[in-house]
């Protein structure tokens, strides 16, 4: 049984009441199941309920989603590794808009994310007489050239500049926390391995700046003996 199957069984069977059993029985919910499978990350029953609620409600309308997608594609354009859609950036905007739409988050979804779409649309209307979605990429870039840098002479930045910085942060975070973004960044961890120090080619690069000293390294773990059960003498010297 693969992971997806086993999780489906768990959802439909044994755990029951704690996870969306009530909605699992209808065929409508294949999509829900797939979403929950996609987001199987060690949730408590309460957390699952919260995710389920937000994954099955809508915050942005289609136009807003398309606007976000267009903005995101300009902030981080597609490359040979993938694009904003592959990275699920728009879905992340949609989810966070709901997840953070509480007074504790100062209604971030409404006051920041939706507000951003409105303000960028307004600026496009002023500049080009068009909504952002109707603008060409080069027109949008003309706008972004103006609002993507802070004006150092101002103590408090203009709303459009602040909103752009937030959108940029969300897009960069969304992209680089996705499967393709992590590939693009070339992060190589999150996988079982045996750490045995900084690779030699990297150490070579830092010659004259930093290096391992023998005395320190001699005290470190001998990875060829990591599987041998530790034993000490009475003085605390490791024997194995």
């Amino acid at each position, binding site marked *: 049984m693969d992971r997806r199957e086993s999780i489906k069984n*768990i959802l439909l069977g044994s*755990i029951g009441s704690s996870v969306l059993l009530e909605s699992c029985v209808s065929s409508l919910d294949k999509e829900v199941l797939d979403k929950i499978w996609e*987001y199987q*990350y*060690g949730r*408590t029953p*309460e*957390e699952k309920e919260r*995710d389920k609620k*937000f*994954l099955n409600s809508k915050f942005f309308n289609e136009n807003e989603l398309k606007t976000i997608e267009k903005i995101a594609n300009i*902030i*981080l*354009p597609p*490359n040979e590794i993938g694009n904003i859609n592959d990275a699920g950036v728009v879905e*992340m905007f949609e*989810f966070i808009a709901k*997840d*953070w739409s509480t007074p504790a988050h100062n209604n971030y979804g409404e006051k920041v994310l939706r507000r951003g779409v409105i303000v960028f649309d307004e600026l496009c209307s002023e500049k080009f007489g068009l909504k952002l979605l109707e603008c060409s990429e080069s027109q949008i870039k003309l706008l972004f050239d103006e609002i*993507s*840098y*802070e004006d150092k002479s101002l103590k408090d930045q203009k709303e459009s500049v602040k909103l752009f*910085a937030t959108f*940029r*942060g969300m897009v960069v*975070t*969304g992209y*680089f*926390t996705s*499967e393709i973004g*992590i590939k*693009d960044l*070339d*992060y*190589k*961890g*999150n*996988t079982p*391995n045996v*750490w*045995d120090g*900084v690779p030699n080619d990297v150490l070579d690069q*830092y010659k004259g*700046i930093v290096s*391992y000293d023998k005395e*320190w*390294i001699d*005290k*470190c*773990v*001998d990875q060829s003996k*990591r*599987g*041998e*059960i*530790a034993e*000490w003498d009475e003085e*605390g*010297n*490791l024997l194995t």
Partner: protein
Amino acid sequence: MEIINNSKEYDVIVVGSGAGGGMATKILSDAGLKIAVVEAGPYFDPANPDQMTQLKWPWESPRRGSGTTRAFGDFHMSYGDWEVDGEPYTVEKDTSFRWWRSRMLGGRTNHWGRISLRFGPKDFKSKDYDGLGENWPISYDDIKPYYDKLDKLIGVFGTKENIFNEPDGFFLPPPKPRLHELFYIKGARKSGVTVIPSRLSILTKRINNTRGVCFYCGQCDRSCSAYADFSSSSCYVIPSLKGGMVDLYTNSMVIEVKTDKNGRATGVSYINKDNGREYSIKGKVVVLAASACSSARILLNSKSKAHPNGLGNSSNLIGKYLHDTTGAGRSVFIPDLINRKTYNEDGVGGMHVYSPWWLDNKKLDFPRGYHIEIGRSFTMPEYGFGYNPNEFNKFFGLKVGGYGDKLRQDVKKYYGSTIGLSGRGEAIPRKDNYCEIDPNTKDKWGIPVLKFRYKWSDYELKQAKHMHDTFEELAYNMGGIALGNKPTKEQNYGISAPGEIIHEVGTTRMGNDPYNSVVNKYERLHDVDNVFVVDAGPFVSQADKNPTWTIMALSWRTSEYIIDQLKKQNI
């Protein structure tokens, strides 16, 4: 409300399953005693795939790991954080305290940094050195055998260094330093700051046939499914359940310790959170390990004719002398670390090197020391990654901001180029920093809650100032730039809010004098001979050392004392 009584009588009831409670459960049940463990949260096993977050990718969370439901992020293994639904606490005006609670089997040991430092000889007798606070009624020699046993049972890596107040133990070998840690070592040596391999309870080498060996994912805060890091759930309670001597009550929130007409404990009452009903169980001995403040709360709420002030509170000191570790932090940008070659540098969950306290306070304007922890940025991205992606352009006269492929290049260029420095220092315990019962507030179960009153004194503020001075010197000597401005006096030198370092201790402090302490040197209430406290409540002072190793060593010692006293039929 009807109370449901369980007729069974246990030898010992242990309240709480974290470091202190787990330790006691293991030692007491191994000795053949019948134990009830009463835990306020649900069952948790780091190896349970339904609960596991280890090795998950950020995209497996729809919020990419951000901290909406868990304050330290979606993948962090703590059920409960600064806030627990329906279980508030209050704070006196113009003071502050933040209280972290992990409601789950194993408690906070599932998420902690595994920094496993012994207190040194000086730490038990600080008053002899500076006249402040109070000495412990025990010395390093009293507790050393338990630290030794703990090292061998649980496993901690480190090195023998022969530093007087940083006692060596039975260490597993440490991992080699990471690249940024080599920069730290260089900077520390130039600055005259001691730097040695860190001491963490993570298995770099096999310690027995039931726990795995570290596979270097760097995620101990998610709790290890191979049991290669120490959690009370995986290392104490779950194995003890297999011995048949332990009954585990989960989702069971203790209300009070029950006493007979002579004032001796007869058991505890608790709320079953699944059905909201009140139950009681009987025991010959009650061991409180609910965490320093929760145990204080239970005792203060245990009022009776014999103990009108709360159980064990004839001294009026329960809740007093509450103190947390001090903290201040700074990030350092290292230009030599831009455009790094990528490779897997996750390592263990936490730093591979650190600086123990290296100065003599007699020559300084604050009384107690701090250690420095080293953080990293060459890590798996999570929500928050890449905000201000090219802020460091300012150091090169380049424009900050923009968008497009240039921005993408900047993200990669600066990835892994910062180092985090965190000072963790010793505060002076004060009677006027405390928690007490708030007479006006109850939690959703109807149990009166705690109210906190806590202020740092000049001792702690001057220490935080010194931390920042040190960070700047270290940054310079690493060839880096300390980021942001040095916090000013008005900003309290950037010191953490009390409670924020999650090392709160001292609420049932230990001593020989019943008028000046709550428990004796075996962590037994002065007022009642069959109630013990084995969390961090009995700490007289907390050194600049993370408390877990000392909680467990003391709990082991107390457990042996309980076994001995039961054998002799003294309790």
